[in-house]
């Protein structure tokens, strides 16, 4: 794809003006880093507040008699039980129980469901969702909205100065409200492991909201490079890397994405496989690895047991700036997925010692109660 074919978010000009390095991502021209670079941007977010443009992600409304009931045919989460003002993680499944995408669904008001999906997957997702809802409910893509994420320990204080109501929300609350003078949907969530918010606003207000937040000296713009290292340290899987159509939510350690009521009913795609896996019958499971020596193990590196037999693969890996070392996410048979398990990662043909560690690598700081 040439650069001319890339789509632009409503914040493209703001990124370029801020000195961002723009790269193709999910069909968009997106900032991978600004002038400070990935390392400083990562650490700034962990210490203060980072502002991310995630407008490439898909935003949609599902409306109808009971859109959650229709939607549950293709997702494993309990969305009929989702309370007003709350948001819940879920996975879109294929018939084999593999993950087509992971997503967030909220009930921010009484206007159906608000769904946020990955940018690279959104066209396919919407097609599947539309076919599933058929004549029971509708899916409306909100192409005229931008999505900003404000993340970090100072995010709450920064946003409260403009949107006092944000301070009354806890982790995974989601509300439609008037903020910055426009109709906004705000959730207290994100993908960095930090406290923070995702803020959906009309596209024509995006640059004003972006600049308003950046005017606070606690806030800096953060690119996709640091977004990736932040989510890796938080032990959060990334679609297209740690998750794909062959991986089930149980293999991925996302058991919570299969709602309790749904397990009892067994009424989701791939229920046979997933029910077996929930009972412990599975061939691989996601683990967090600390690389004890040498270079970072990147996506695609093989994982071996202590004797050198290949048992799995790294699906995400790199250097964790806050962790202070090389870390990776990968898949291995359950027998090896024990904290303290001594394994090897093969980097450029050379085995290096690695150890299974707990997730997350860096403690998360979600605000679960006020």
């Amino acid at each position, binding site marked *: 794809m040439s650069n001319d074919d890339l789509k632009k978010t409503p914040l493209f000009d703001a990124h370029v003006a801020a000195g961002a390095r723009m790269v193709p991502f999910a069909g968009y021209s997106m900032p991978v880093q600004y002038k400070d*670079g*990935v390392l*400083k941007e990562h650490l700034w977010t962990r210490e203060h507040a980072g502002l991310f443009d995630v407008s490439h992600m898909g935003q949609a409304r599902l409306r109808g008699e009971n859109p959650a009931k229709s939607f549950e045919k293709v997702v494993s989460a309990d969305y009929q039980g989702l309370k007003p003002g709350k948001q819940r993680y879920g996975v879109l499944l294929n018939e084999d129980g593999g993950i087509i995408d992971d997503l967030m669904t909220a009930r921010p008001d009484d206007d159906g469901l608000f769904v946020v999906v990955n940018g690279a997957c959104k066209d396919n997702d919407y097609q599947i969702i539309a076919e599933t809802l058929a004549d029971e409910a509708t899916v409306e893509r909100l192409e005229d909205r931008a999505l900003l994420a404000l993340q970090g320990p100072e995010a709450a204080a920064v946003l409260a100065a403009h949107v006092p109501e944000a301070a009354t929300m806890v982790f995974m609350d989601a509300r439609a409200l008037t903020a910055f003078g426009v109709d906004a949907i705000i959730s207290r969530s994100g993908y960095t492991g930090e406290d923070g918010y995702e803020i959906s606003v009309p596209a024509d207000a995006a640059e004003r909201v972006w600049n308003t937040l950046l005017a606070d000296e606690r806030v800096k713009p953060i690119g996709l490079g640091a977004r990736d*290292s932040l989510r890796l340290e938080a032990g959060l899987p990334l679609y297209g890397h740690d998750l794909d159509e062959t991986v089930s939510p149980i293999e991925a350690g996302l058991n919570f994405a299969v709602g309790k009521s749904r397990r009892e009913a067994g009424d989701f795609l791939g229920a046979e496989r997933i029910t077996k896996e929930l009972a412990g019958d599975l061939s691989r499971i996601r683990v967090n690895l600390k690389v004890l020596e*040498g*270079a970072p193990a990147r996506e695609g590196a093989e994982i071996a047991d202590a004797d050198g037999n290949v048992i799995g693969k790294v699906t995400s890996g790199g250097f964790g*700036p806050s962790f202070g070392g090389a870390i990776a996410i990968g898949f291995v048979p359950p027998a090896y997925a024990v904290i303290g398990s001594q394994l090897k990662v093969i980097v*450029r043909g050379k085995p290096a010692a690695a150890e299974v560690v707990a997730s997350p690598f860096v403690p998360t700081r979600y605000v679960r109660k006020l």
Partner: protein
Amino acid sequence: MRFTKDHEWVAVEGDVATVGITAYAAEQLGDVVFVEVPEVGKTVAQGDGLAVVESVKAASDVYAPVSGEVVEANAELGDAPETVNALPESGGWFAKLKLSNPAEVDALMDRDAYEAFLATL
């Protein structure tokens, strides 16, 4: 100092060439967090992989700009990989090669030619 289109530099003293990456390359890579330098005694041909430099985001190969035998590797980069960003064209060198074909050096770009090449990127 001479330069390649892959943004390596060589500085020759007698029959030994010191090899590193240019300030432009270091800036493009971003924060270097790990460097794999070659073992002393290894023989490389021009264009072979010589070192690997890792930023937070990705691993990049550093190719041998000239052929020769590795006579010294920069051990300091093990503890201080950030030197590649701080001093790319001096303290951040990767290896010293004993030249096996000194004529290769003359075929590389000089500073003016390299600057002109950068202007085309």
